[in-house]
């Protein structure tokens, strides 16, 4: 805990972070937020002069995947110091204090920074049986959540659990796991869904709030527009194969090796709003579709109860798009299934793919 006048910059410097890395962080953040180059100096200026905002990070019913994602952010500063720079005053998973000492930090922050701190919530409260499916410090988590929310400036709902309920709220939802906006109704809540959310999205959102002292622009569902305004499908690198009616029919089949569209394998990219196909995962290395598996739509509300994840040939109409996969395939190839692949054999894509295959023979 620092004094109220402490700035982020002073915290950073105390951690031994160089001024150069600090500026690099600012420009990368500006880029990832989709802001122009001038924004970098605005961010730097804000972090140097504004008093830092304390962040309390609480865990309810969850699996810690959001924290896991967060600490692997590719930002150069994150690995150095994000945990201290963002000044997590309280985080069950990584902090030093334990037990009642930790509880005391919560109380102190609440009193000292009344109305000024950010409450970041990972997981959600289960309401069945008086909340006893998630007991934290001898009390149901929902009580701790309500208490800390009361004096928070705003709340970040990390991940699908806090935003929508996620798999633990899947039918029959044995514990009545409940998204936090159903429990906290009088505070601004920013939803950062995904299971987990992308690390760069998490750091981007939190840096925006800390820098500008306000929430980023949200869509109707409470998600930051800068990261959740596009469908995975819109920016998917396999999109051209969807348009050409070229589809994978089985895992690792000939079409899979050619990188065809995974729609028939149950891909939910066309109905999922997230930044996976642009920001990507694990340091920008890849994302689920790139691994050859369809998107499961983990940032969408109710993704866990929309029928099997492996349903094939689901009609696109159901998703509210123009044509279903087979119709598109038929337009392209005059037939479905094998004929789609046969058609593809004469396309340039096929020739490129063949070349690539030659190059990947055993060495």
């Amino acid at each position, binding site marked *: 805990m620092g004094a109220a006048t402490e700035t982020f910059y002073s915290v950073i410097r105390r951690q031994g972070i160089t001024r150069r890395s600090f500026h690099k962080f600012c420009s990368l953040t500006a880029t990832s937020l989709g802001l122009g180059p001038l924004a970098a100096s605005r961010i730097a200026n804000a972090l140097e002069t504004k008093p830092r905002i304390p962040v309390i990070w609480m865990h309810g*019913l969850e*699996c*810690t*995947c959001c*924290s896991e994602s967060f*600490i*692997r*952010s590719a930002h150069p500063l994150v*690995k150095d110091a994000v*945990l201290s720079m963002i000044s*997590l005053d309280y*985080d*069950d*998973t990584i*902090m*030093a*204090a*334990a*037990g009642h000492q930790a*509880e005391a930090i919560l109380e102190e922050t609440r009193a000292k920074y009344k109305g000024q701190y950010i409450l970041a919530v990972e997981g959600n409260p*289960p309401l069945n*049986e008086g909340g*006893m*499916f*998630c*007991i*934290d410090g001898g009390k149901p988590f929902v009580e701790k959540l309500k208490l800390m929310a009361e004096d928070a400036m705003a709340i970040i709902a990390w991940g699908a659990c806090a935003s929508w309920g*996620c*798999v633990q709220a*899947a*039918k029959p939802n*044995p*514990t009545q796991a409940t998204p936090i906006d159903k429990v906290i109704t009088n505070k601004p809540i920013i939803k950062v869904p995904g*299971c*987990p959310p992308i690390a760069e999205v998490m750091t981007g959102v939190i840096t925006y709030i800390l820098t500008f002292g306000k929430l980023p622009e949200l869509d109707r569902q409470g998600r930051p527009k800068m990261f959740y305004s596009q469908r995975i499908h819109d920016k998917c690198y396999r999109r051209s194969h969807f348009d050409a009616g070229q589809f994978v029919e*089985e*895992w*690792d089949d000939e079409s*899979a090796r050619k990188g065809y569209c995974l729609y028939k394998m149950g891909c939910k990219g066309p109905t999922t709003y997230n930044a*996976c196909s642009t920001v*990507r*995962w*694990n*340091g920008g*290395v*890849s*994302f689920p579709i*790139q*691994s*050859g*598996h369809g998107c499961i739509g*983990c940032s969408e509300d109710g993704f*866990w109860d929309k029928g*099997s*994840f*492996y349903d094939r040939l689901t009609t696109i109409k159901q998703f509210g798009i123009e044509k279903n996969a087979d119709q598109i395939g038929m337009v392209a190839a005059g037939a479905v299934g094998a004929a789609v692949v046969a058609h593809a054999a004469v396309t340039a894509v096929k020739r490129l793919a063949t070349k*690539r295959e030659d190059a*990947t023979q*055993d*060495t």
Partner: protein
Amino acid sequence: MTRITIGPFNRVEGDLEVRLDVESGHVVRAEVTAPLYRGFEQILEGRPPLDALVLAPRICGICSVSQSVAAASALRDAMGCEAAPNGLLATNIAHAAENAADHLTHFYLFFMPDFAREAYASRAWHNATAERFTATRGSAAREALPARARLLETMGIIAGKWPHSIAFQPGGTTRAIELGERIRLMSIATAFRVFLERVVFADTLENVLSIATASELDGWHAGRAGDFAHFLGLADDLSLARLGKGPGLLMSYGAYHGLEGELFPRGIFGRRALIEPLPVNQITEDVSHAWMRESAVDPAHSTTVPDPDKPQAYSWSKAPRLSGQPIEVGALARQAVAGQPLVTDLVSTSGSNVRNRVIARLIETARIALAMEEWIKELRLSQPFCLEAREMPDGAYVGLVEAARGSLGHWLAVRAGKIERYQIIAPTTWNFSPRDSFDVAGPLEQALVGTDVGDAGSRAVAIQHIVRSFDPCMVCTAH
């Protein structure tokens, strides 16, 4: 006698509460509570079996690949199919990366920061330890986190994203690795080796793995740099080998299934230091002290239904037993069953304890770093990575794997193409189990008894060391 409660525990995965009865400064009885339950087994019932590949990994954000691999393994059993050899190798590489990352997280972020506490300010090593390992501020995390993040780029290449990867299927992995990707995998494995050799061990992995006895280890670490030696130095000073004795029995389901069997074999390391075969059908779950309704004891036939008002119960975790006995699982068990020379010698001479658990984890990390290099070389890029199988006859099936923290089993019953029952026994369910109907305590409960807490009560740091030496994953425990 006084009763003290410790919780919530920080720096463990999920929520944990421990109650201790203390008499003249020593723990005489311990109760371990898993206070978090979500109901995955109930949620999985009635769904299409393959949906387990998406739902089950979400039990845990830290060992999600282990959950994926266990689900895929149970489904493979159900489909009576084989996995493509490349798929097994790719799975092994990803699984090894996750397990190694978990071991690093445990050592750097969860376990070592306790030695930076003020309670140790008078020790000769304290300044150096505080500089290196203080939670969120120590210099070690700044080196370990990037190394770990780099290692986990493996997940990007093989599995698209992590945690909660979906590329692991009964027939293998969904993605064929390309030549350029193989080269990237190799460079990641090499970077990981360099990190281990430079920062963790200050020696080559081959040299570290040639240490065969406890006394050789003492000779090796004297005067050596590196975080492993740093730990060994303070472990000797604090006699951590005398802390947190396990129940004596160690179990491994066998890890990293390859074409020629497992890298680390399946078995039990018994009290007389003999390695015996594992009688899988002797695995049972007792619910006498869990907030759960009575059901069959055999996980292949049992169901999980909460009973929150049950008298006597104190945890959401069931009590798994092997042939009626509590058993310890984890890297120590895996390496003892695998006959790793140093770990075998350590366990034979001083049993399972705080020091040996940490040593076994780091020794295992060195072993899997080497194995990853081999698996990457063995990939045959033009061969299939995934084989198709569709049929899933009615019946009861099982998938047994080793997660970083120990033995993980998924028991699956299929009826008319739907999941009839699904039971999961996770590593920490074994280690942090409550008492059974014979009032026999679980491994951690036994390990805590006898601990000297002095006047410190709930602040006694020894308790923290013992609890964390098991590297608990509480969200897996009761799921």
